[in-house]
């Protein structure tokens, strides 16, 4: 039996009929076609499913979709604004922090929450702040450097618009179908 919930996702009001036992992660990926947030351990250890809920980073695999009624959610798709990437996204690109990329949405969202809370974290604070985001490709160094770079630029003039940046949370309704690649 589904429940209708109303919430804001990446700045847009959304209305979703969600099963009580479906997690926020499943709701985002399957009902809203926001597949940027990833599924991995499903026990709150790896952080691949990290999203921001009412200003705090959470593992969306441990939150029910229904719990998000009335909440404001930010996923990786909502970080870029118009044609401008989030400074963290720019920094991750510059340091080459994304290798296979699977953990990266979670890393960037966690880092966003960290910098929103502590605009100029120490290296230790970054390590602790991102400790809930596992990466298997990297030595973590380039990820840490990306966060430091973004933090250092906080308050600096806005970077030029990225040629292909776009808010990727476009009007993807549950009915939108994409042809097989």
């Amino acid at each position: 039996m589904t429940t209708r919930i109303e919430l804001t996702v990446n700045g847009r009001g959304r209305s979703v009929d969600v099963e009580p036992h479906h997690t926020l992660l499943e709701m985002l990926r399957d009902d809203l076609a926001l597949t940027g947030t990833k599924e991995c351990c499903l026990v709150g250890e790896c952080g691949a499913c990290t999203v921001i809920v009412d200003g705090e980073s959470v593992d969306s695999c441990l939150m029910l979709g229904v719990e998000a009624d009335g909440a404001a959610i930010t996923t990786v798709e909502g970080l870029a604004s118009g044609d401008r990437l989030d400074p963290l996204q720019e920094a991750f690109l510059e340091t080459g922090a994304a290798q296979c990329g699977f953990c990266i949405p979670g890393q960037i969202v966690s880092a966003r929450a960290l910098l929103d809370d502590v605009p100029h974290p120490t290296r230790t604070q970054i390590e602790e702040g991102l400790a809930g985001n596992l990466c298997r490709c990297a030595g973590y160094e380039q990820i840490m450097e990306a966060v430091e770079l973004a933090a250092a630029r906080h308050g600096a003039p806005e970077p030029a618009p990225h040629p292909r940046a776009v808010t990727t949370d476009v009007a993807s309704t549950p009915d939108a179908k994409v042809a097989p690649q």
Partner: protein
Amino acid sequence: MSDVVGTRAPRVGGLDRVTGRQAYVADIPLDDVLHVKLVTLPVARARIGAIDDAAACAVPGVQLVMSARDLRSPMPRFGPQRRDRPVIATGETKYHGDPVAAVAAETKDAAEEAAALVNVAYEELPPAFTLETALATDAPLVQDPSLRPDDPHANTNVLHEHRHVWGDIEAAEREPGLVVVEGSYQFPMVTQFAIEPHAFMAAPDGDGIAIWSAIQHPNWLQRVIAELLKLPLSKVRVHAPDPGGAFGGKQHAKYEPLLAFMALATGRPVRLVLTLEETFQAVRRGAAQVHVRTGFHPDGALVFRDVEANYQIGAYADIADRTVAKGSYTSMGPYVCPSARIVARSVLSHTVPSTAFRGFGNPQQIWAVESNMNEAARVLRIDPLELRLKNLAKPGDAFIPGDTPADGDWAVAVRRAAEMIDWGSTTPPGRGRGIAVGLKSGPTTGLSYSTVRLLVDGSVVVYAGTSDMGQGARTIFAQIAADELGTPLEWVTVVSGDTAVVPYDQQTSASRSSVFMGNAVLRACRDIQAKVRAMAADLEGVDGAGITVERGQVRIDERTIPIADVVKRGLGRLGGEIIGIGEMRKDAEPDHPLGGTAAFYEFNCTAVEVEVDRETGDISIPKYVTVSDVGKALNPNQVRGQDEGAAVMGLGHTLMEHYIWDDAGRIRNLGAIDYRIPTSMDLPADMESDIVENEDGPGPHGAKGMSEGALLPVSPAVAAAVTDATGAVIRDLPMSPERVWQALQELDSAEPAS
């Protein structure tokens, strides 16, 4: 000099990764898809009885419950080395997690519900899940002896015994005055734990079939599916999206064949995304017990080395026996060792089938051999650094008889690592230092094709079938093409991951792609250059001999014309493009024990400084350095990412990773809570990586392959540092705090009170 190759060019695919647009298999929606859930038994080994799926089929939305009875008889089997793996378990499940049935339903919920309702009658059978039980004379056999009738080991769990011998070890052992150091070492069972769990899809595609898999070897998978389904290759299309990490665990077919049969049976697309727990039950590294006995002259020169290794592989061969063959073959290390005897066995067991995993059989023996070197250094009272330098092969040394000579000035990497860690300086109190080297033989055979298209406006499309799983393959191919054709990097598109469109690539493994596919791309570009030269000759009405085409510039006498201008003129009003084809091929050498000599070697030196809390066994790493011999770093930033990633992955199996089994052969620590990998808080305080670039590799610009080297010597370097700090010698991994504490307790109780 290039201004593209060798630079920190931005990663192709980077933007998609940071915006969440990168589509991994689980992100790709298919119309009308059925969701699949596997049914497994809660035991290590069982005889399968009746499968009652009535309750499962009654769940609304269930379309199919497939098990062995739904496939032809005899059960179709597959496997890269032996066709031993059934599409689905038949007669017997052979490891904890071996699927016995699979449900396809309209929703994930229905599939999950139905899978829990499939009732399988089974009889638990005694499993052989350790090396000891698998090698016992009365061991239960993992594989039916009738499957390998001519094999002398058929009535044992030894799948294969590999022997490599050179020199005269019997004579060498009798030399007087030798210092002989020996020991037995254990390497644990660990799993790749890519952050992307395995995911697969299959769909009928016209009169053929389409498969989606994050497979490292798309063409290989295409062959497997074609053979199983009795289809021509041209009717099997493999889509291979970028894996979210693979590390060898996504090289070979796992559940794609099962999904293919389910797609054909239902006439619909089917989708299976494994949980992380199921992934741990699908792939892992071979565990090993390695005995090393090395003889030295008192001055430290190697005289002989005798290695006996038992690798515990899983219930099906997969590519595991090859990892044993290749890994053990280089057990002498990058040293000149006059006499050698290596005996290595692949031992089947009722466990998760082991497969390729970064290092491919080498980390296990390097753990033993390099630890043995460090222990020898203490016995000989020779600095472990000097012991390495004394024995290291020099460029051109035929250190493995009959194989490629040493292809790098490895001493440079060793000295660099020593310098970076300040080897020789007084170690701060409470700390210890360790050093180790690692060598891996590169690909022994290989074939890669690339097609490159130079379009009329000067932009370029590169077709290269390498799987870009984080190492940045597409980026370096774009760099190579941009450099060769003088195209801006942003104007190059690289297409991969579709066997219907991209020409053949043998595989992505063995760190081969910079060399094999890199050269194929390079040669395709040279092919274009030759065609442009002919075109320019035609346009100018001159002989082509006087024209050169290089790096995007066409030189005719004193004139230099950009390639795009020539192409535009040459193609004329009809337009069109120039297509180049390139290939790199290394044929098999049938007489060689590995089927071919090494295309190159990967070499790394790692040095570590550790601090050990003697009361708790905690190891912290104030300083870590790793230096790889790479020939040429086509993209230094990506090289750094790979080397540092490999180091941290190595720290995983060194300090914390292992499967934990119960007495009945079931895995206790499935999933992320109790299988520990390093987090951002587990890093060395100061980690530095460096590279040696002597442009002495066979790849473009003198590149060699890389990305496995930095994982190889992590554990012996750390163990040696722990010994240096505490005196405790540890020979079993992982060196968890409890194990270190245990070793310290034993040391304290063994030492007489002073």
